[in-house]
């Protein structure tokens, strides 16, 4: 493994990173009310009087959100706590209607777990999960609608979030990025969070500190609300460098909350937090402790889908894919699903080559998602079938694929229309070979006197003569025979 240490003026530094990720739970309605959770609705149109904290309104918990949290916990190989408690976290803010957020403080629904990150050099590392708890999201304050006023939209208020807290186990921006990517992959596999960071479905608070290798932990800064994998990497790189420079320049890191300025690529102190918070947590008396039966948990365990790590090892061990290809395929649930449809009942390695090669290449160039891409898994599978049954050569298939990308047509239809069907008729191939051999009598002699390398030349000539449609196996066989003078 390559060293993660950062070089400073006075020596090497180790960066220590932990992350708190807020992931929006996939559910139709909110954690404690029956209002909808859809993104992008008209302001305050998805708000119940519970969300707006009207007098006398009471929370009632959504079973699906609890299931999703348990499912996520199981996906993170974590301990599920049969008893957890909802607490009130008290503070005032314009988009926090009740003046408290219902969260879980001392007794979260999910305890210790772990997640394996895959690094670009092919190595893996385990990152500890400290806990996962359920809590309510706040509303949204818009500061740019009016010169002297802030506008408040409570559509998000009360939407269920999972806060997933990692151990301070990461040692580089690369690892932190890998952690966030992997977590997002797992949540998408589980279907517990859509992982859509642009819409705010996932946000990360990143804790960064630096220390001399082997020494005790340094003072950490928390970078709030970072909303993409790329920004996590940039923010950590900047922040670690800032802390190293600060310490080497004789300064001291202050424990504080910082914001990542995506425009300038820097972190800056949130100076508006003028006082220390005192959240006055206490158990929410409107709710009872959440107690889960073993049955409830087992039922969810039975529904768990195959997760990326397991899928990867199956692709390697059972289908014979390379670790690299398998890793690429499982990194995104849609890709993995696509691949599995293509590979079903077909040559798994051929399918992997096609999906990771031509298909991903074309997909990336198109800028589209798998769902909108004209070549579906079934269509790509159809093309692979034509290769397998000898209708087209692998080389011809690449041309057909490009036509399919442009037209969205089935492979068989393209072959039919363009007359690209491979020729396996030995008569036609023999005739073409005859012509080529006749036209190149000198080369035939050279070959027969031992210059084997010329075989490829003859193959190329025959192929060209036949417009590329000759079945390569049949061509090879016939050509060998005819060159041998039979």
């Amino acid at each position, binding site marked *: 493994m390559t060293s993660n240490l950062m070089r400073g003026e006075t020596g090497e530094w180790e960066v220590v990173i932990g992350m708190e990720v807020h992931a929006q739970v996939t559910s139709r309605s909110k954690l404690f009310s029956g209002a909808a959770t859809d993104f992008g609705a008209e302001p305050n149109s998805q708000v119940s009087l519970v969300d707006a904290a009207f007098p*006398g309104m009471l929370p*009632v918990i959504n079973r699906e959100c609890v299931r999703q949290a348990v499912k996520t916990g199981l996906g993170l190989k974590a301990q599920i706590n049969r008893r957890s408690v909802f607490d009130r976290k*008290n503070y005032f803010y314009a988009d926090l209607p*009740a*003046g408290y957020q219902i969260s879980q403080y001392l007794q979260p629904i999910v305890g210790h777990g772990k997640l394996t990150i895959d690094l670009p050099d092919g190595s893996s590392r385990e990152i500890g999960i400290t806990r996962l708890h359920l809590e309510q999201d706040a509303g949204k304050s818009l500061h740019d609608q009016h010169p002297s006023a802030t506008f408040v939209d409570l559509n998000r208020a009360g939407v269920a979030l999972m806060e997933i807290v990692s151990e301070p186990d990461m040692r580089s921006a690369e690892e932190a990025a890998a952690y966030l990517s992997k977590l997002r992959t797992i949540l998408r596999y589980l279907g517990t969070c859509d992982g859509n960071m642009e819409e705010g479905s996932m946000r990360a608070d990143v804790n960064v500190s630096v220390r001399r290798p082997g020494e005790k932990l340094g003072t950490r800064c928390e970078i709030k609300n970072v909303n993409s994998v790329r920004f996590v990497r940039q923010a950590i790189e900047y922040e670690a460098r800032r802390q190293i420079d600060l310490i080497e320049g004789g300064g001291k890191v202050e424990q504080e909350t910082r914001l990542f300025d995506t425009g300038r690529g820097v972190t800056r102190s949130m100076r508006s937090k003028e006082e220390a918070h005192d959240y006055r947590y*206490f158990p929410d008396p409107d709710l009872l402790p959440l107690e889960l039966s073993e049955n409830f948990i087992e039922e969810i365990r039975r529904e768990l889908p195959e997760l990326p790590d397991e899928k990867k090892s199956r692709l390697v061990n059972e289908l014979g894919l390379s670790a690299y290809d398998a890793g690429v395929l499982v990194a995104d649930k849609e890709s993995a699903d696509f691949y599995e449809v293509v590979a079903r009942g077909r040559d798994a390695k051929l399918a992997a080559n096609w999906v990771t090669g031509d298909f991903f290449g074309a997909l990336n160039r198109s800028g589209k998602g798998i769902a909108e891409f004209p070549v579906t898994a079934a269509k790509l599978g159809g093309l692979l079938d034509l290769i397998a049954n000898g209708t087209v050569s692998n080389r011809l298939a690449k041309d057909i694929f490009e036509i399919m990308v442009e037209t969205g047509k089935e492979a068989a239809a393209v072959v039919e229309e363009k007359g690209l069907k491979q020729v396996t008729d030995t008569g036609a191939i023999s005739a073409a070979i005859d012509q080529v051999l006749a036209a190149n009598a000198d080369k035939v002699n050279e070959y027969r006197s031992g210059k084997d390398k010329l075989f490829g030349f003859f193959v190329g000539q025959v192929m060209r003569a036949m417009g590329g449609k000759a079945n390569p196996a049949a061509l090879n066989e016939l050509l060998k025979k005819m060159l041998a003078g039979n």
Partner: protein
Amino acid sequence: MKVEIEKLTIASARAGLRAREFSATELTEAAIAVMEAARPLNAMITETPERARAMAAESDRRLTRGEAGPLEGIPIAIKDLFCTDGVQTTAGSRILKGFIPPYESTVSANLWRAGAVMLGKANLDEFAMGSSNETSHFGRVENPWRRADGKPLVPGGSSGGSAAAVAAGFCLGATGTDTGGSIRQPASFTGIVGIKPTYGRCSRWGIVAFASSLDQAGPMTRTVRDAAIMLGAMASVDEKDSTSVDRPVPDYEAAMTGDVRGLRIGIPKEYRVDGMPAEIEALWRQGIDWLRSAGAEIVDVSLPHTGYALPAYYIVAPAEASSNLARYDGVRFGLRVPGNSLPDMYAKTRGEGFGAEVRRRILIGTYVLSAGYYDAYYVKAQQVRTLILRDFERAWERVDAILTPTAPSAAFGIGEKSDDPISMYLNDVFTVPVNLAGLPGISVPAGLSREGLPLGLQLIGRAFDEETLFRVGGVLEEAAGFSARPQTWWKG
């Protein structure tokens, strides 16, 4: 026909309505007339005579069709802590003045479904914080009862408006809420019946919250039977309240068999507090004699942690209140006092919108939950609550109900205790343990003080055993034969 509502009960009015002796409209008109005459008591914050008339007309139609509900045509008052759809709901606070809820509390909705008629919204201590109904932004309520000296007295609190309304005779019942004694103490002070049911029996949905783990709604009526009828209509299992208990509502009226033979009644020695007036002690002894004569077995019990109930209460209730009242921030409803920034707007709105007692309790609650104090205060208080509940559980191994005085005194004069929070808090010394343990408790008028003021006795029961309270309460009521009425001095 002219209906004398002051002489009716829910049970007798129900019989009269069904026998067509008078109509719901006639009964309601009588109620409105007495309510208007009783305005000097300041028992109501909002009167809703037009709504009452419309509801009474509906009741008459249902009575005619033979579709009468259990409270059909019965005029009642609703404590202004219950949100009522389209009718101002203030919680007695300036901060909610003008607030019109677009929803109806579960309890009041249950009452309307049972056919009850709404006369209006009753006054209360601000956010139900008080024992004298002197902290309402809409003015204090006066007790219909007076001593011979004619000095105005408090009706108790926080359900003081509800109590005064029932005692003054213009409604046959009123809703109250009880967090530390707010139904039972004013019932005792005004000579009426009030029951705080088991926590979880009545839905809290739509009731302005004071202290969520203690708040419970209940009826205030003239008789034990009326309380049984009215609680039967108020109680329900409500999926909108996670603390509402999933148990069918029994027929409480049917529980009033008049027979307490063989029942074991506990007398807790810790309720003989220092400085308790002799007349309270004597009344308690009288109550014991009545029940013994009726065939009940009297058993001495011990509830050793009783003395710690009030201190525990004055940690738990303010702590929960400080959080529950954070939503009154001038953003979505109620008062807003402009400020030059958001925090400034909050501080001014809440500083001016809340009265002195509410501010005091929010600050205490904020303090006991704050970093470094939480364990010493809040956790400690919740541990003491566990001990108090255990005391009762041990007692239930030996007795079926417990008899105590409701309050340590009769109604006191307006202004007498308002400068001394602790002496005010001591009013709830007998009622608070019941809330902390979540148990049902009923106050039954049992006699008069030397000065001619009503005094109540309290019965405490096992969780969800309101039936025994109605059964024993009915016998106590019968034995006491309490029939005194306040002089109607307010009629001028």
